[in-house]
């Protein structure tokens, strides 16, 4: 019987629940995907690239789990507020608090179960499709990877079961402590109080000042160093809260006093917003911060990725070096289109621990080496080495050549000698072929094959021992590619959560707004005017946290740009990612307007 009542409770409010489900399902699906990638050994142990990716994804799923915890509590709170009246009625009719507790826990778990199961199924689909996208991002081939991975399924179920169980118990506790009468009247209670002008002004000024302080801290990270982060965190969170609680209220009051408020439904729209914003302070602050986190995650993720070729090419001029290339190697090198190659003769004397090169060769076709000229923009310059530069082992030219030799002779000293001296060395003459691919992204396929062959040939444990900047490129790619992938999907998960929170909050007020819209209809408001008022109200509620969020990111990126983490690339992808993010956000806005209008706008024929 209890079970039946609970299920019918969910059924009756199916549409409201659907909004919440969508957020929860996307979160579950993304969590599963992260888990599947980070825990699946087939993915992570097959190569060092996978190992790097694994760490990134473990970090990502922990972050996601923390945010999900907050979201589940928040969403459950809303759900329960919708059921307050029903539970009040049950208690009025004599249901004991134990019965109500059971009802609440059953309901919460049912919601959890449905969203987790659906989320995992969608998550498997996500993983199937997106794992190949990830693999291409980090230049890794996936042969034995299966999207369905039992340990990931179990991890997801365990986490969400714990989350929902805690949420259920907490809900039950708050409910049984509230009296039936309070619950029954919950929808009639209005908590709007006219704020005092002085408090309002103080908070508004403090809010703007705190935000400005936080932005400045991030902007001036070079001076403040690590302190910038805690300063910015505290000031921005507090500042955001005060700005919503007061600054925007004052702005609306100013509009109300102006002549705009006399036309059409403006006075109503402004008043609705003024009441709403104070009631929404917490959610709008959370939405604005989540918005910043989400957009930041995507921007930083994609920004890192763009940095890879620059970083790699500044760390070495030649992409790969091959000792005594065979036919296969030559044909692979032939596949690289835009390239520079150079071949030196080399003799190795293991007794003297020396490697000999010919001075005339180094003169005729000099070795080139790269070095960063600006840490900020990651710009690098190419230099041409003179044979005399190889005398000192700490010169950049020496370092470049040393790094390109095969690993077995790296402990030996490099000697540049004349041709006759070279001929006198009693050893086999090796050919050292050095290849520079001017576009490493384009040449990634043959270069990967070359390094794989070399790894096999020399039996390295770690691919990084193969000389040349391409191995560096590969390992940056695996970390930053995973960061980009994770940034995008964490961003989407955050977006889904924040937008559905906001959507939910707006929709949960729709029932009480309906009476107002009915009345406006009765006194003769055109449908189009009602619709315009709805769009304005919801647009403002969506736009304000969005704008603050974008500002947060715009200043937050300063930390990456100046702090040296994301050199040169910090703002590269900001515009594009913001635009893409706004499109998704816009979809949530449109859906909210549609659902809200359907609830509150009276049909032509009002039936009472």
């Amino acid at each position: 019987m209890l079970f039946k009542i609970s299920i019918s409770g969910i059924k009756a409010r199916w549409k409201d629940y659907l909004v919440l489900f969508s957020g929860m399902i996307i979160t579950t699906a993304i969590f599963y995907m992260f888990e599947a990638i980070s825990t699946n050994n087939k993915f992570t142990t097959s190569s060092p690239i996978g190992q790097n990716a694994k760490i990134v994804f473990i970090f990502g799923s922990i972050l996601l789990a923390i945010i999900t915890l907050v979201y589940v509590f928040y969403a459950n709170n809303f759900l329960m507020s919708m059921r307050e009246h029903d539970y009040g009625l049950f208690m009025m009719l004599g249901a004991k608090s134990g019965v109500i507790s059971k009802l609440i826990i059953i309901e919460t778990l049912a919601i959890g179960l449905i969203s987790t199961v659906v989320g995992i199924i969608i998550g498997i689909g996500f993983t199937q499709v997106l794992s190949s996208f990830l693999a291409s991002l980090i230049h890794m081939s996936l042969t034995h990877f299966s999207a369905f991975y039992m340990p990931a399924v179990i991890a997801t179920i365990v986490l969400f079961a714990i989350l929902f169980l805690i949420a259920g118990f907490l809900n039950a506790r708050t409910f049984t402590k509230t009296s039936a009468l309070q619950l029954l009247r919950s929808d009639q209670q209005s908590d709007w109080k006219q704020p005092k002008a002085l408090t309002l002004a103080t908070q508004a000024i403090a809010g703007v000042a705190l935000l400005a302080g936080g932005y400045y801290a991030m902007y001036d990270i070079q001076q403040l160093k690590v302190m910038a982060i805690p300063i910015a965190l505290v000031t921005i969170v507090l500042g955001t809260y005060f700005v919503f609680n007061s600054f925007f209220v004052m702005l609306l009051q100013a509009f109300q006093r102006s002549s705009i408020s006399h036309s059409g439904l403006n006075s109503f729209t402004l008043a609705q917003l003024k009441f709403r914003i104070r009631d929404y302070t917490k959610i709008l602050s959370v939405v604005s911060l989540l918005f910043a986190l989400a957009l930041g995650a995507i921007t930083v993720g994609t920004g890192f990725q763009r940095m890879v070729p620059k970083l790699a090419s500044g760390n070495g001029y030649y992409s790969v070096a091959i000792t005594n290339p065979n036919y296969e190697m030559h044909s692979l090198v032939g596949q690289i289109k835009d390239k520079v190659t150079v071949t030196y003769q080399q003799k190795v004397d293991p007794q003297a621990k020396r490697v000999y090169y010919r001075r005339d060769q180094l003169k005729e076709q000099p070795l080139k080496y790269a070095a960063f000229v600006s840490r900020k923009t990651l710009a690098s310059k190419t230099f041409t080495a003179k044979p005399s530069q190889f005398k000192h082992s700490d010169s950049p030219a020496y370092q470049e050549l040393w790094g390109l030799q095969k690993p077995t002779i790296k402990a030996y000293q490099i000697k540049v000698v004349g041709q006759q001296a070279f001929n006198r060395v009693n050893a086999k003459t090796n050919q050292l072929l050095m290849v520079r691919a001017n576009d490493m992204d384009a040449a990634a396929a043959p270069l990967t094959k070359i390094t794989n062959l070399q790894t096999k040939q020399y039996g390295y444990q770690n691919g990084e021992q193969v000389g040349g900047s391409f191995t560096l490129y590969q390992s940056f790619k695996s970390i930053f590619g995973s960061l980009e992938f994770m940034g995008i999907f964490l961003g989407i998960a955050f977006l889904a959560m924040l937008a559905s929170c906001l959507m939910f909050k707006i929709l949960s007020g729709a029932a009480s707004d309906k009476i107002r819209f009915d009345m406006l209809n009765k006194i003769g408001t055109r449908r189009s005017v009602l619709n315009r008022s709805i769009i304005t109200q919801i647009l403002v509620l969506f736009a304000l946290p969005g704008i603050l969020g974008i500002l947060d990111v715009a200043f937050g990126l300063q930390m990456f740009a100046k702090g040296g983490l994301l050199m040169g690339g910090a703002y590269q992808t900001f515009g594009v990612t913001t635009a893409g993010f706004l499109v998704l956000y816009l979809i949530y806005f449109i859906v909210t307007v549609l659902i809200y209008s359907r609830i509150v706008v009276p049909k032509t024929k009002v039936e009472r």
Partner: protein
Amino acid sequence: MTTKIVQTEDLHKTYDKDSAKPYEALKGISLSVKEGEFVGIMGASGSGKTTLLNILATLDQPTSGSVEIDGQDVTHLTSNQMADFRSKKLGFIFQDFNLLETLTAQENIALPLSLQNAKAATIQTAVKTAASKLGIDDLLSKYPTQLSGGQKQRVAAARALVSNPSIIFGDEPTGALDSTNARELLDTLTNINQQGVSILLVTHDPFSASFCKRILFIKDGKIGDEINAGDKPRNEFYQEILEKLGTFEQ
């Protein structure tokens, strides 16, 4: 001859017409309200009062029959035309006041004029005039939550009056008021009526009805009876209503 403000001809309204069990709420109602009249419509719940009021107020459309208000046929208006018509020609007073608690009394009263995009100065004057008629000049800056039930209803009455409507519809306007406030509001309505505004009151309360000049009794979707106050004192008319209700409801 005085003009007819409201005129209906053989009004029918059937709900769920296409279903197996259609429900006929109105079964051929013809009535008229002349300019300056104060008419009451009485009936038990489920008799069709509210359906009739909704149709007269252009909130609902009849299944068949015609409705003319101030000489205009309102049964064939588009939804925008209906909205404009309501904001210009009709005033409403509801049982539960229907004030917007997010707006001050002044803003609530101004709303119908704002909707017609009247000039700010025009709105100011009209709001002041309506407010002084109802004696609520000092309440204008207050929010509904700061007002008593009687004050709220007077604000609602001012909102109904502000656009100089052809007729004011009252839907149980005293239903949520105590006897003193109810009395006050009814006196106010009588006062407004004496200034020439037509009023149509839907109620099941005999006391409220006794302030009307003419009462139509509606039962099972039809007009069953009609009584006139004529020159009788209000007490006598009240007794007559009670007697009528006694026989009518059997």
